């Protein structure tokens, strides 16, 4: 069984301050948005990180049953992803990076093209599907959503392009014999467990396992000279331009003002504070429920 995990490297949104968000919102285009977030550190998309660790645990669990599993990881994006790819190589993934800019683009062009993909899930999905094909993946494993757009549609659109079924909001994956997997996921009406058989697309959601293990220095050294396979969109036969043109156009972004009155309720003790809160603000509201 060959599993390919697609992941995205994003700016750490939590490291951005209000002024940075104002800059992101004021940016005229994808390039400006990428520029406004370029100074913060990069992180794995949270669901992508969970998908990567679930893949490793699945490999380990299958190995306990004497079953071989091939692991590959790929990303669509610029050189930002290099340290992340190196970590994944050390953990045993074959790694592939797709440069969405196409051709021997400069880093800036790549960043711009990657930024344009942020709100174009169909274009991203076309590249993701092409990677899955390139890697011969029986299972395409993705994070349920992530990045600036966070549409949650990439797994479905990639599945559509591949002609495969897709299960999202996956919370656990276990081996079930040589060719099947038992997946737990959240359906509209609650958590479900079912058997699935490749080829399929699985998108990981709020899994209990959410953090990627860390390779040792020795494991890193062992893959120090192993190159990451690189492709352009054109190499994979994907015309990103067409998909980008079809994407919804982002007209504006605005910081969300979540401020409220913030009236301060005082009291010398917790009992007094609770009484002031209850009598002054909550009692009538609760009685009206």
């Amino acid at each position, binding site marked *: 069984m060959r599993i390919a995990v697609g992941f995205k490297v994003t700016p750490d949104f939590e490291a951005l301050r209000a002024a940075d968000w104002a800059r992101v919102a004021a940016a005229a285009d994808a390039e400006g948005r990428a520029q406004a977030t370029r100074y913060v*550190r990069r992180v794995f998309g949270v669901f992508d990180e969970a998908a990567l660790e679930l893949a490793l645990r699945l490999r380990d669990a299958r190995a306990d049953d004497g079953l071989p599993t091939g692991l590959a990881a790929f990303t669509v994006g610029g050189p930002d992803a290099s340290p992340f790819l190196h970590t994944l190589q050390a953990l045993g993934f074959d790694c592939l990076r797709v440069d969405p800019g196409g051709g021997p683009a400069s880093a800036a062009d790549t960043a711009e093209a990657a930024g344009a993909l942020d709100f174009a899930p169909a274009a991203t999905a076309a590249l993701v599907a092409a990677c899955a094909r390139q890697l011969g993946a029986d299972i395409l494993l993705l994070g349920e959503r992530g990045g600036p757009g966070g549409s949650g549609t990439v797994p479905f659109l990639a599945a559509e392009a591949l002609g495969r079924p897709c299960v999202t909001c996956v919370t656990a994956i276990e081996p079930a014999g040589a060719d099947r997997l038992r997946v737990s996921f959240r359906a509209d009406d609650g958590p479900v467990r079912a058997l699935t058989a490749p080829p399929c697309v699985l998108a990981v959601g709020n899994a209990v396992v959410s953090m990627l293990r860390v390779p040792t*220095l020795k494991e890193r050294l062992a893959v120090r000279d192993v190159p990451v396979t690189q492709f352009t969109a054109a190499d994979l036969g994907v015309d990103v331009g067409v998909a980008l043109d079809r994407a919804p156009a982002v007209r504006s972004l605005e910081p969300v003002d979540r401020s409220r009155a913030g009236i301060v309720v005082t009291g010398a003790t917790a009992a007094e504070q609770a009484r002031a809160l209850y009598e002054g603000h909550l009692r009538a509201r609760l009685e009206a429920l």
Partner: protein
Amino acid sequence: MSLSREAIVEGLRGILGPEAVVTDERVLVENSVDNFRKLQNIFDVHVMPVPAAIVTPTNAREVAAVLTWANEHGVNVIPKTGGTATEGGLESAVPDSVIMDGSAMNEIVKIDPYNMQATVQCGVPLQVLEDRVREHGLTTGHSPQSKPVAHLGGLVATRSIGQFSTLYGGIEDMVVGLEAVFPNGEICRIKNVPRRAAGPDIRHIVIGNEGALCFITEVTVKLFPYLPENNRFLGWTLMDMKTGFEVLREVMVGGYKPSVARVYDPGDAGLHFSHFAAPDDCVLLFMAEGAEGIAKATADGIQAIVDRHPECTQVPSEYIETWFNDLCWGPDKILAEDERIRQTRNVNRTTEISADWSSINDIYQAARQRIIDEIPDITMMGGHSSHSYINGTNMYFNYFFNVVDVGPEEETEKYYLPIISIIVEETLKRGGSIVHHHGMGKARAPWVRDEYGSSYYMLETLKTSFDPNGIMNKGTIFPI
């Protein structure tokens, strides 16, 4: 004959009343360790002696009453405030200890903008004080990573240092006076003056005593103008630490006082700066602050110095500013870190030392290489220098390892202590200090005689004089 656990609790209740004596078993167990053995709390496997009680006195007289009683009955007392200790200073070395928690003494006594000083009780969180003095356009100038959580009492007790120390100094340069209570119940106040030459400076008996001599109830610290609009940030990438140390030295010798002056080795830089530094790059960074002319002159002077080193490649200052804005660790980050350890069993530890300019690079290189060679399961071994002086600098070793084949409670013995041991050996060999700013705690206490040499007589005399019955934080600074 030592008191039973029940008798200890009874005695404390008699002094402070039942509300000020915490005996909830769960709370006590969690307080049997600090961050030195944090995996015991993260994985909930506790093997240390459990304290008998936690007491929360509300003034110096109550502190004195408890200490007098403990001194009479030989009960070990562990002073504590914010609880961010990393070196075992707060863990229970002996059964049935009493943790004296000063966090209920949390009043800001006075902010005096004219005389540029603020007086607070020991349990005031530094962040709270900083926020209050900022309302006056002032700052404490003290900004350890633990700022959101740590309290003033503990910061003074451990000789804390902040991220802006190169300009403002360590806490020892900030404390102008204080109040402390000794085991015999003596309440001592050192008045607040700009300087004195009336004999030895006895503030230093209290600052850094780590609760092994006395309990700090109140401190007065200096204040400085807060002028963030003048902050300037500078950053470079470079190929080796030796050059980095050399630039830091030239900046210090040149008489410049940047608030932040750091050089990161490739491993440590990879944690913070991989979005602009290549995997083998070191990162050199500075922040200049203060009055506009001073900040400008400082930044210009540093620029001129680094420009003489063509092997340094300048990076946009926004990278450094963004890093700077996300420096401190609040409770949310601590929780996320704990969860990461729980899931991945990958643990981050740090050990900080200091040495003169001639030795620092050798210590760094030797300790780093030995740790990589001798310790299993290392996932990152690096560090940075973050506090520089005219005669030398510190090295903050920062390292990660996977805990493999042992229980979480054995992490300290299998990995952490052996690594500390290597760093300490390499430092002592070259005449450095084995502790730059976290305190000795119980982690590095075994090397106290090596650290002090012939001056250990002076240190030991402080202990035997002020705490003759040895009831103050047994095992801290002075090994059992």
